[in-house]
C-alpha cells in the first residue's frame, strides 16, 4: 500500500491509498480522480495517462521502456519528468509519491 498524491493541473490535490501491484494510473482511475483518462486501460497504446513525477521520486519510479519512451516522444506538453502512469507499478517504496497532471491528455 502506498499513499499517492495526485495534483490536477489547476492545483486540486487528491491523496489516496493505492494497493501494491496496481499501477499509478489504476490508482487514479479506480478513485475517480480527474485528469488521467487512460483510454486504453494500461496497454501503453494511447498516452492519455501522462503525469509529471516529482523530482524526488524520479529514480524510485524506475526507467521507461522503449515503447513508453516512444509514445511520450509524441505526446503533448512533455517534460523531462514525464511518464505514462500505466507503466509505474505501485510498491511500498512509492509511499508518499507525488505526481502532477498535464493541462490536457489529448
Amino acid at each position, binding site marked *: 500500500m502506498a499513499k499517492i498524491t495526485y495534483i490536477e493541473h489547476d492545483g486540486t490535490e487528491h491523496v489516496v491509498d493505492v494497493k501494491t501491484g*496496481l499501477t499509478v494510473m*489504476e490508482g487514479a*482511475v*479506480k478513485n*475517480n480522480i*480527474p485528469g488521467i*483518462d487512460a*483510454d*486504453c*486501460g494500461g*496497454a*501503453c*497504446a*494511447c*498516452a492519455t495517462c501522462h503525469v509529471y513525477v516529482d523530482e524526488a521520486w524520479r529514480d524510485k519510479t524506475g526507467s521507461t521502456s522503449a*515503447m513508453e519512451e*516512444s*509514445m511520450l*516522444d*509524441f*505526446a503533448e506538453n512533455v517534460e523531462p519528468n514525464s511518464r505514462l502512469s500505466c507503466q509505474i507499478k505501485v510498491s511500498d517504496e512509492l509511499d508518499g509519491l507525488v505526481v502532477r497532471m498535464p493541462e490536457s491528455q*489529448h
Partner: protein
Amino acid sequence: MSDLGAHVVILGAGHAGGTAAALLRQYGHTGKITLVGEEPIPPYQRPPLSKAWLKGEADADSLALKPLEFYAEHDIDFRPSTRAVKIARADKVVTLQNGETLSYDILILATGARAIKLPVEGADLAGLLELRTAADAEALKAAVGPGKRLAVVGGGYIGLEVAASGRALGAEVVVIEREPRLLARVACEALSDFFRGYHEKNGVTFELGATVAGFEGQDGHVTGVKLQDGRVIACDAVVIGVGATPNDEIAAEAGLETARGIVVDLEARTSDPSVFAIGDVTHRPMPIYDRMFRMESVPNALEQAKQAACAITGRPAPAGEVPWQWSDQYDLKLQIAGYAFDVDEVLLRGDPASGKFAVFHLKGDQIQSVEAINSPPEFMMGKQLIGNRKAVSKAKLADPTVSMKEVVA
C-alpha cells in the same frame, strides 16, 4: 440547459455506461444515477478478455473499471443482473424484466452490441463459444490449454487475439475465415499478409476462403467444424468471432430513430432530447469523414460517454476526436487511427519483415487512416495529421529514414 439534479437512468453497464456514470459524478451531477446492467458484475474492461485475462495475467479486480464500493460511495444505484424491456418515452418510464418501473428525467442507452451467431446445423452444441463478456472469457479459459484443439471461426481482430492467447496457453489453433484473407473487412492486404505470416510462425494454421457449413458433435459437445467443401476440422472447442450487431431493438421499439444503430448527434443525443445513446450501439456522426457510421471500440465508448456527460451537466462539448483502436498479439502492438474512407492510395512505410512498419491510407495528400505495427511515432503523428487534415509529402512519408517529426515539419 442542464439540470444537475435530474434523475439519470443508464441502460447498459459496460465500458460506455460505467464511464458515463463516473463522469457525471466527476462533472458535479448531484441527482440520482441508476445504472442498469445485465451482467452480474460491475462495469469492466473488455479488451483484456482476449489477451491478458485469457492468459491469466489479469484478475477480476484489475478488469473492473471501479471497485464495487465506488458505486455506493458515489451514490450510484448499480443494478446488476437486470434487464430493461421497454421504454415509454411519453411517460419517461423504463420497465425492467421483473416488472419494476424506473422513472427518468434523462435516459442514456448504452446497450452495446452482441455477437452474431452462425445460422448453421449444430450451432447449439456445447463447446461453441463467443467472446463478449467475462463469463464468455471464463468458459473459453476453461476450454483451452495444452493438448486442446481450438477452432476459431472468423479471422478478425478478436479471432486473431484469441488465436495468439490460445497458442500462449499451449493449445493447437486453427483459424477459419470465409474471405480469402485475414482482417478483410478492416485492414489492407499488406497487413493481412503480415498477420498471417506472424501467426503461422507461432504455430497457428489457417483455412482461408472456407465457409462453415455446420458443427459436428458427440454427446452434445462439439467435436468438429464442418466446412462447405465437406472436410471436417476436428476440435475440442470453437470460438466464433464473426462480428457483432447493435442492441438497438429497445430503442427502435420506443420509436427512436435507428439506422444499423441508434442515431445520435455529436452530443450523443438521440432523436428524443431526453434520451442519449453511447458506445457500440450508436450510429454517430464523424465530422472528419463527413459521414455517419457505427464503431465498436473502447475509445469511442469513452468519447461518447464524455459527450453525453458534458451535455447533461452543461459543460462545453469535448473537442472533435480522431477515432482509434489497438490490438495486442504475441509481442506485436497494432495501433490504428482513423478509418480508410475515400482512399485513393495506400502507402507502406518501413519493412514488414522487420516487424515494425506502418500503412498509411491517403486521400490526395491527406491521411485518412494509419495502421502502425510496433511503431508508436507513426501512430501518434498519423493520428494528429488525420485530425488537423494537414497535407503531407508522400515521398517523405514513404521514407523511414525521414523521422515522423520531419514528415510533419
